[in-house]
């Protein structure tokens, strides 16, 4: 049973990943990305990472993919992607480099070089039982400093995103002259 689920998900992951890089329409790429993310979430459940799987679905498959689709529709970029490469050898070189990378990483994955110490932060617990408590205990004790730093990182990212997305390079000159209501609406923000 586990093998069947693994192979199904593996096929879905590979098909989705290839679809992301081969689809001409960015919307199709986003939907293939969704297929890959959900399949990875299924494998997370298989690996006794239930909370991580739930967060994968909520954060990745919902929020991030929706954000991608939203930006695609906002920009309307699906009509003009250039598929002619500026340099003719770039694509073959990329594929050769990718094949070399695949061989290297598969060789690393196949060797039992990871002899790490077992369970320094807490055991996973019995299979299929859920380990949210263990995970939360580890997150709020051993990793609490990193947890606080992620809060700082998120605040910085949100502020940076807002600062980049609002129109910063506005000309101050002609805008208030158009009408009185316009100047009122613009007042406190600028």
């Amino acid at each position, binding site marked *: 049973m586990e*093998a069947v689920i693994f192979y199904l998900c593996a096929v879905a992951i590979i098909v989705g990943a290839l679809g992301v890089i081969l689809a001409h329409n960015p919307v199709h790429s986003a939907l293939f990305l969704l297929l890959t993310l959900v399949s990875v979430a299924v494998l997370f459940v298989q690996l006794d990472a239930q909370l991580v799987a739930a967060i994968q679905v909520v954060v990745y498959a919902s929020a991030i993919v929706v954000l991608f689709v939203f930006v695609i529709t906002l920009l309307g970029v699906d009509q003009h992607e250039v598929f002619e490469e500026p340099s003719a050898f770039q694509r073959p070189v990329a594929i050769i480099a990718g094949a070399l990378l695949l061989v290297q990483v598969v060789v690393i994955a196949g060797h039992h070089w990871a002899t790490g110490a077992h369970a320094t932060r807490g055991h996973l617990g019995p299979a299929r039982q859920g380990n949210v408590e263990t995970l939360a205990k580890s997150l709020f004790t051993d990793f609490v400093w990193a947890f606080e730093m992620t809060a700082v990182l998120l605040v910085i990212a949100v502020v940076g995103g807002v600062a980049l997305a609002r129109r910063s390079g506005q000309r101050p000159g002609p805008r208030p002259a158009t009408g009185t209501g316009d100047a009122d609406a613009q007042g406190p923000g600028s």
Partner: protein
Amino acid sequence: MIGAATVTPTYYLTLAAALFTIGAVGLLVRRNTLVMFMCIELMLNAANLTFVSFAKALDDISGQVIVFFTLVVAAAEVAVGLAIIVAIFRRRQDVTADDVNALEG
């Protein structure tokens, strides 16, 4: 290897390696910056899969904790990156990576 009844952690690691490689090749091949961002998401997911399968193999919860931090970094990266893409598009009406070479030496 195909058809074996038991799934060892090596299988998951190999799958994550394939996923990472596809993401890397896509990053090199595609020119649309949005698709390049999706390829980065693929590579981050491959790393997450590796972390979780090591957490299972070594029976250690910290592999799953690290995945949280990877998710936070991915969310921050997408927020800032898409804001940059929107800003570039507003100025140049295009999001092709080769056209954004004003800072090229």
